[in-house]
């Protein structure tokens, strides 16, 4: 029989490499006809950062979008970018091209001020024209300024810059540090149908809301939401490199053995974009890249519970796991011990390790010590003082 269920998850995700210290750089030059070349090392392997960066440069410089082309092709002509990962492309790479565009605009205004015999502070760049503020009829085209720079002044209109969140060192005792450039948020509602005879789960609808600070390109944000949604369904329901982890049995070496979501597995999408701007982001942007596959697996898990009353805690929720959970519902019911409600005892470290996991600092007392007490003391760490450096093991790096 098929059962319907609905589940909710809410998540957050950081921008940039954890602990920071990951720079991106860019440089820009303007050709004699005013067209703009942007160089950055931010390789675009399909995520679309080159389009987003072009949009940022167009507005930061004040020229039409189609005047700007961007080259991210190689390390000889393009300056450094730490890389396309850690959800850093729009925010850190985007800030780098923004800073470079602002520097280029300054250089452009300096030439224009000489040509127009006005103070550069009285000038602005709008739609490819350098205009005197308040007197828009007094203007020069960016192409005219760039031409003058090249042929009248013998120079180049160019600018370069970079952006980085300075590195933060975590306190080894407390972990205190400032690890991220910004934090994005998302919430996801999954609606599912669970077949209690086959264990098959079908996601019928995903409602997803993402705070991206500012959607530089809403179409591409929606693309990330839906693409991430499909990937999240793969994580939540289908994909596993070791089907019988931790054993090595039945590893798949081709797509026929390793199931990934196909178009028929994708549900109805409701995409919601929230814009709660980040103070440091380019035009207020945060990030969406990686986080777009994080909220669906727990939302699907909650929906399965809503539908058939079992928790799947070993993601993905394959038909085998769902059926097993239904079969073992009684044996795997949570254990009550005083004020403790203990789920998943049978898969915990203490249950599986031959020495009870001695060596790890536990999140609870072993069962023998908990039983009967039930009081606040049960929360105590297993070791007398986990802050004691005596628990350190291994040889120093």
């Amino acid at each position, binding site marked *: 029989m098929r059962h319907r269920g609905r589940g909710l998850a809410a998540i957050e995700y950081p921008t940039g490499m954890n602990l920071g210290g990951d720079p991106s750089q860019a440089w820009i030059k303007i050709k004699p006809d005013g067209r703009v070349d942007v160089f950055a090392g931010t390789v675009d392997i399909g995520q679309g950062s080159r*389009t987003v960066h072009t949009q940022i440069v167009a507005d930061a410089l004040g020229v039409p979008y189609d005047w700007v082309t961007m080259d991210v092709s190689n390390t000889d002509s393009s300056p450094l970018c730490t890389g396309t990962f850690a959800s850093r492309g729009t925010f850190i790479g985007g800030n780098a091209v923004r800073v470079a565009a602002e520097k280029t605009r300054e250089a452009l205004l300096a030439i224009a001020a000489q040509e127009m015999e006005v103070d550069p502070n009285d000038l602005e760049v709008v739609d490819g024209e350098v205009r005197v503020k308040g007197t828009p009829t007094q203007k020069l085209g960016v192409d005219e300024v760039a031409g003058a720079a090249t042929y009248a002044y013998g120079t180049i209109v160019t600018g370069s810059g970079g952006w980085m969140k300075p590195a933060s060192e975590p306190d080894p005792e407390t972990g205190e540090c400032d690890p991220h450039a910004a934090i994005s948020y998302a919430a996801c509602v999954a609606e599912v149908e669970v077949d209690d005879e086959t264990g098959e789960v079908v996601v019928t609808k995903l409602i997803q809301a993402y705070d991206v600070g500012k959607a530089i390109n809403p179409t591409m944000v929606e693309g990330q939401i839906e693409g991430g949604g499909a990937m999240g369904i793969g994580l939540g329901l289908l994909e596993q490199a070791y089907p019988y982890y931790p054993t090595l049995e039945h590893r798949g070496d081709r797509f026929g053995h390793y199931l990934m979501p196909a178009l028929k597995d994708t549900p109805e999408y409701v995409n919601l974009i929230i814009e709660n701007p980040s103070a440091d982001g380019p035009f207020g942007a945060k990030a969406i890249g990686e986080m777009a596959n994080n909220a669906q697996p*727990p939302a699907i898990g909650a929906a399965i519970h809503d539908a058939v009353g079992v928790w799947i805690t070993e993601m993905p929720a394959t038909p085998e796991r769902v059926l097993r959970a239904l079969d073992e519902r009684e044996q795997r019911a949570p254990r009550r011990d005083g004020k403790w409600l203990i789920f998943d005892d049978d898969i915990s*470290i203490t249950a599986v390790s031959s020495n009870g*996991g001695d060596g790890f600092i536990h999140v609870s007392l072993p069962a023998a010590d908990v039983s009967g007490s039930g009081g*606040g003391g049960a929360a105590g760490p297993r070791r007398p003082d986990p802050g004691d450096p005596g628990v*350190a093991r291994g040889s120093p790096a």
Partner: protein
Amino acid sequence: MKAVGARFPRYDGLLHVTGRTRYVDDFKVPGMLWCRTLRSSIDSGRITRLDTSRAEALDGVYAVLTHEDPDRNVVGHLEDLGVPPDMPLLAEDEVRHKGQLIAAVAAESEERAQQAVDMIEVDYEERQPFLDIRKAFDPDQPQVTPDGNVYFYDPYDHCRVRKGDVDWAFEQADVIVKGCYRPQAIEQAPIETQAALAIPEADGKMTVHSTTQAMYFSMGIVAKFLGVSLNQIKFVGGTVGGGFGGKVDTAVEPIAALLARKARRPVKYRSTREEEFLALWTRAPWHIEIADAVSRDGWILGRRTLTLHDAGAYTGFSAYGAMKHLHHSAGAYTIPNVFMNSYVVYTNHVPTSAMRGFGVTSVSFAVETHMNRIAGELGISPWELRLKNGNRIGDLTPTRVKLEDPSTVPTILACADAAGVELPSEYAQMTPGERSGELLPEHLEDQLGKADAWRNR
């Protein structure tokens, strides 16, 4: 402000859908050789003999690469950040996982290269693999490294986050909910497998066409294996093909470059899909235990977590990922008292690596499933539990960063609206700003309220 916010089509979208975009594997140059690799057939063991002589003698074979060829055979992806390098590019005296690279061949065709690979003789002395991270400290288990099965974060064998007084929270709690969460390993599975074409130029430079996600990062790694400066290499990146984290690992570029140097011919190494699945790196499996101290009315007073991250056979990016995981173990919520530990455990699985959401995908699954269990136990709606404990402006993260623009509340309310969920007015009218006095119990004001008040406590 005309371009920002506009729905421009992506610059290369039309090229992609009409098949005119070139994958890195589409690049060919005259005289190009092809690479195939010899990889470990066992999960763990000593290499007792490696003989490449028959392969080298085969017609059409231009170079055979072993651990003796790189200037440095052990380069750590994060060694510049203080993570000690441990993984050899080409195995020398032992293998720690099935699929570990032992030798590579450059030949006139892929078929000939594979023929040569099949002629390389290797003998092993097999060991029992270590596989279950929960048994990392068990005395009866095999040791993956000479230093044991756990990565050492100076000064502990784990990294930690501590905030507030977690013992107080667990004493105060009406209910303590504990659970275990085990998100599994998956493949990055990009549409183009990892590929590189290395071209030795006439002036002595090396041009490397690469599928990398990080040209400068990969160039730095290759420079170390070759023992040259950064201006002796030019990386050319791709324009499509995906990555999802798996192409941060610089796996094929050093092999292509070293073979090209040795053969003095351009060499292309495109990993096979089987290599991608069985030998190249996966998303890590995790084991996460969470115990939350909660009040009957739905405040999360404290959280203890214990995370084990399966690094596979070598450190890779694991030290980084397990720490990032820890820094986000409160999820989108403000929890005043936390005690969190994260361990990186070595196993004889394939080394694990970055993948979309690195470190945090696992914690999102664990924390959110746990939140739903807490809601069920307390009989509180999962919407209200989340809104109540959600991040607000001025709250402190577990690592004591003051939040400036959190959106737990707006994203949840947007979903509630779209899902037709009716919330009580005190929740429906919430903003990302301060908690309302009504919802905030007086005795928790210090902790759940303003960041500075808690910090100075």
